[in-house]
């Protein structure tokens, strides 16, 4: 891979990460009115002494540039500050909530991506047989079904059909692997459906595109079987756009998980964020948003590199 490509991507990455940190940092400073009074007001009686104390504690009495340097210095050395009210390190709060979300997101991605390949190939094969409009309606419905509603309907169906099944909440994998997966499978399916629809459509159009290429005609002329053409020649090339969309999917998953977690009572990042908003715990909120966004940006960076590795044309 070209070094210049990687270097330019790296410099983009640094600029974006810097920008993201500034935006996140400014959040608390942009709160209309006095952020300190609002934070205090959500949890305790507001007195001038308490306000001064809190202001000093989170450094809001310093010049803004100094505040940023202080904050970013902490972030870079792994110190995300402490949660406002519990005084626990923010990093511990996040660590306590991050695993259910990661598990849910990964499981959804696996379900969606695994099913999308055969479904997309099938959709490409059904082209021009009068199925087109039905497939289009089905895939758009899959794209637009609200995951949280789907989750609620699944809970309703299961509660009616099999009331004894325990499906809400979360148990760590290390404690009870089967119980862990059993509780995650419904939310993962609810979250995976739009991904499945999206990826299957992508595979379909990439397959149709690939099947029109010259190398397919060459393969046919050589007498390669239709099956081998479809799965060996066309599908391999059709999977390239599949890789790039994983980056976008990650963003969707992180967003969707926040909501679906609430439906299934999963104590993940969604609960942490909503709790932080309810008690105006801005330091915790900032750190969580920053960390999740950095992960999202990093995933996209890796996807870019993988894409360039698969298809070296993009580095030129």
């Amino acid at each position, binding site marked *: 891979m070209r070094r210049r490509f990687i270097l330019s991507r790296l410099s983009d990455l640094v600029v974006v990460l810097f920008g993201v940190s500034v935006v996140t940092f400014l959040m608390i400073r942009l709160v209309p009115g006095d952020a300190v009074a609002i934070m205090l007001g959500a949890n305790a009686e507001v007195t001038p002494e308490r306000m001064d104390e809190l202001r000093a504690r989170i450094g809001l009495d310093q010049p803004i540039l100094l505040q940023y340097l202080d904050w970013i210095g902490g972030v870079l050395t792994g110190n995300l500050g402490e949660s406002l009210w519990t005084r626990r390190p923010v990093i511990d709060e996040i660590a306590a909530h991050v695993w259910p979300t990661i598990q849910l997101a990964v499981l959804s991605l696996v379900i969606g991506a695994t099913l999308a390949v055969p479904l997309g190939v099938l959709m490409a094969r059904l082209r021009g047989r009068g199925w087109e409009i039905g497939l289009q309606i089905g895939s758009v*419905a899959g794209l637009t079904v609200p995951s949280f509603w789907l989750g609620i309907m699944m809970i309703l169906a299961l509660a009616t059909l099999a009331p004894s099944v325990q499906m809400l909440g979360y148990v760590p994998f290390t404690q009870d692997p089967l119980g862990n997966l059993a509780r995650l499978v419904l939310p993962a399916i609810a979250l995976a459906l739009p991904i499945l629809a999206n990826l299957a459509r992508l595979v379909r159009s990439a397959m149709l595109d690939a099947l029109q290429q010259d190398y397919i005609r060459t393969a046919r002329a050589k007498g390669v079987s239709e099956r081998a053409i479809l799965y060996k020649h066309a599908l391999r090339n059709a999977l390239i756009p599949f890789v790039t969309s994983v980056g976008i999917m990650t963003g969707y998953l992180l967003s969707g998980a926040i909501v679906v977690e609430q439906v299934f009572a999963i104590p993940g990042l969604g609960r942490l964020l909503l709790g932080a908003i309810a008690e105006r715990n*801005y330091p915790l909120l900032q750190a969580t948003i920053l960390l999740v966004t950095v992960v999202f940006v990093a995933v996209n960076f890796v996807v870019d590199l993988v894409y360039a590795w698969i298809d070296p044309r993009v580095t030129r």
Partner: protein
Amino acid sequence: MAGASASLRRGPSRVLLVAGAFLALTVAAALLAPVIAPFDPLAQSVLARLQGPGATHFLGTDQFGRDLLSRILHGLRASLAISFGAVGLALLVGGTIGLVSAYYRGWTERILMRLMDILFAFPVMLLAIGIIAVLGPGATTTAAAIAIVYTPIFARLLRGPALVVAQSDYVMSARSIGASDARIIVHHILPNLASVVLVQMSLLMSTAILVEASLSFLGLGTQPPTPSLGMMLSEGRNFLLLSPWAALFSGLAILVVAFVLNFFGDVLRDTLDPRLR
């Protein structure tokens, strides 16, 4: 672009007409909600709580005895208004940024597009939640948050084609006869991007409906007692086993409105770019 105009000259396809008709029907139902809703969406009735679908209340009632159909129609109206406002604002701001970048190039472009990259780096819900945490929950804040999240999408969408159009012969000739920058952008560049914009608006309004519903579901969007589909779903969830109708129908309504918008955009895109149909 040549293919696009050719296929439009042949007239819109039947599918596009049907998709458009469903979209028009949904929008009409939302606009006419105050007229066609059989009940006041806020009127409570202790005697008619948690009813199933019936002759008086077609879709049943909620935990306060409020008519579900009327609440859904009003909620639909609020959802569409928020998503249209958000996407419209994003188009206005993002589109301007994209056009200005493409037209002036150089440092203007570099700085503006970098800012867009930074906004685009946040996962949608996270940025929206951050903005709402700053501005406070509510319908207006939700619209503003979604608009900010979508601004980079329009900036990127319009910059590309605008770059091509800005280099084209007819823009050169417009410039040579002394047309002003603003005139060239408004009269020569924008009309050529109309179809791309319409497709994207329709698709983004569909996702905006889902984001708005998610935020209301989490209690961060429209605040009670104003009807909103996401909040109805969240309230209905508490009575799920007692009376599933509120959760069922409010979710279906979200699906239907998101679907008609997305389907319309999808079919329109196929019509304009028929390569892979």
